[in-house]
């Protein structure tokens, strides 16, 4: 079994990219804001970028080793890279695009990605989803040992995304290749990858299964990245062993987590409940606020109440007859909140 070993150290425009990871037959997603250096990692592995220092090796074969003076050109590295905008050759039809990587498996791949009927079409005539399939087929035509995906879903519209995400997850599970996937959307990462690494400012802040990152974010970045509400405040010991966080915006919240000094209180939207009035429930944290916005997402609704975003079922939202501008109470448990250090 070939593992991909990766160590990179390279100056980018405003920070230094410094990452290290090892991949087996799994999918690792690098998530982070744009400009965090994610694409540079992929380019370095593919051989399109020569880092100042680094080592990229597949098993025993070193593709890049700056210390040993090894730097194989891209065509000698067994990679399949799917670019963010797919980079399909505009002057070739679909068949020839796919065949560019390797002629042997063209028909098979066209079949598998359900694009046989598009074989004679030009990239310009295809939809976003179709182009992505061609890009994947083309990358796989080369029978690569490592698969690299650069923001595979970001060029797609919301509806296509959901469908493609599911298909892609299936494909990756089937292929079982060391796959490095880069995205700015945590949910996509969680859906597609076995492990997720949050990368900010050129460094990996936390690397682990998606559930781990959700349950125990290492710091504020990771927390907000995974979609949590983050309230800034100062922590001090509170009543009954809880930690009291005096919020910058005013008021206090409580958490079972330990914390001192400047902290971020993180709570996920789906752990925030809404009611018309404050009730005597077990939740310790209540916030009264105005409904600022309501966004429907299928069978759920994201409601912004004051500084918090809550996610409740559409049915519940209807039952509460929520309207913008109305007062509601948002509440969550102290056990549902996490404290992360603020840098």
């Amino acid at each position, binding site marked *: 079994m070939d593992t991909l070993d990766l160590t990179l150290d390279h100056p980018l425009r405003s920070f230094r990219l410094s990452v290290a990871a090892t991949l087996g037959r799994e999918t690792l997603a690098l998530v982070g804001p744009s400009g965090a250096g994610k694409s540079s990692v992929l380019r370095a592995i593919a051989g399109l970028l020569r880092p100042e220092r680094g080592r990229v090796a597949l098993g025993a074969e070193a593709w890049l080793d700056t210390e040993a003076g090894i730097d194989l050109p891209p*065509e000698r590295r067994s990679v399949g890279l799917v670019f963010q905008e797919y980079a399909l050759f505009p002057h070739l039809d679909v068949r020839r695009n796919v065949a560019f990587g390797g002629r042997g498996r063209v028909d098979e791949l066209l079949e598998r990605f359900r694009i046989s009927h598009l074989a004679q079409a030009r990239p310009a005539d295809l939809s976003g989803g179709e182009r992505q399939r061609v890009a994947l087929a083309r990358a796989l035509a080369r029978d690569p040992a490592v698969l690299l995906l650069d923001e595979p879903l970001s060029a797609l519209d919301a509806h296509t995304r959901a469908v493609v995400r599911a298909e892609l997850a299936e494909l990756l599970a089937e292929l079982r290749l060391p796959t490095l996937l880069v995205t700015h959307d945590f949910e996509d990462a969680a859906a597609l990858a076995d492990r997720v690494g949050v990368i900010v400012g050129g460094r990996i802040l936390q690397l682990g299964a998606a559930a781990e990152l959700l349950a125990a974010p290492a710091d504020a970045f990771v927390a907000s990245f995974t979609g949590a509400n983050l309230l800034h405040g100062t922590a001090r010991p509170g009543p009954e062993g809880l930690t009291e966080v005096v919020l910058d915006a005013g008021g206090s919240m409580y958490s079972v987590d330990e914390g001192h000094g400047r902290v971020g209180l993180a709570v996920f939207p789906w752990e925030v409940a809404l009611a018309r009035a404050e009730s005597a429930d077990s939740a310790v944290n209540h916030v009264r606020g105005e409904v600022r916005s309501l966004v429907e997402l299928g069978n759920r609704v994201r409601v912004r109440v004051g500084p918090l975003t809550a996610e409740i079922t559409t049915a519940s939202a209807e039952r509460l007859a929520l309207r913008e501008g109305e007062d509601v109470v948002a509440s969550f448990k102290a056990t549902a909140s996490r404290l992360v250090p603020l840098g």
Partner: protein
Amino acid sequence: MRSPFGVVLALATALALSFLLLPILAIFVDIPPGQLVDGMNDPAAIDALLVTLKTTLIANAVILLVGTPAAYLIGSHSFRAKPFLVTAVELPLVLPPAVAGIGLLAAFGRFGLLGETLDVLGISIPFTQLAVVFAVMFVAGPFYLRAAISAFESVDPTLTGAARTLGAGPARTFARVALPLASGGLGAGWALCFARGLGEFGATIMFAGSLQGVTQTLSLAVYEQFDVDFDVALAIGAELVVISAFLLLAVKLVPKWTRSTSPSTTPFAPFGSR
């Protein structure tokens, strides 16, 4: 679309087209076709045609074969000295043709920089057909080179990068991706280069002189025939027009070259094709 602006557009187009086409059409209308054909059969005209075909073919072949890879190298990299390099390549364009001729003599003439070396090798360039080829290459080459550099610069580096990750080495990437994608710009640049070469006069007469059957190209022959036999001059002019039109049109119609999606390189693409 009867807006005043639409009328202005139509008027401007009519003016431009008629102004450009009138002198050309006049050449063919000025004398009866029979005399035109007789003129073309004049020995001076035939000799000039042969000299031109031979020298233009060789010059353009060299320009394409040497210029294309050079333009690819320059166009696909960025380096600090690039603006200076590209300017250097463009310099011959701003030289008056006679000065270009003097430059060629200063380099390759009997007393030029390479004169003695060439002499030792038994090679003498001025007054030969090779000199005509040199003059055409020097004067017209930069047109192609400049356009080619620009064409390769506009090839999306992501595409060439993609080709490399798909297993294509630098040579295959050039041939299968960069070249086809740049071909529109290359073709347009070459058309200009070819036209300039065909009309080349000043540098040729300075460096190669003008001798019927040896160095007298169609352009030089027209000039001489003005005083000898005006009908022959017209016939040669007509020949020049026909040859140029044929080649310029051919470049646009060759099917493979026009099939890229970049709007600026597809000659017949409608404005809103993307």
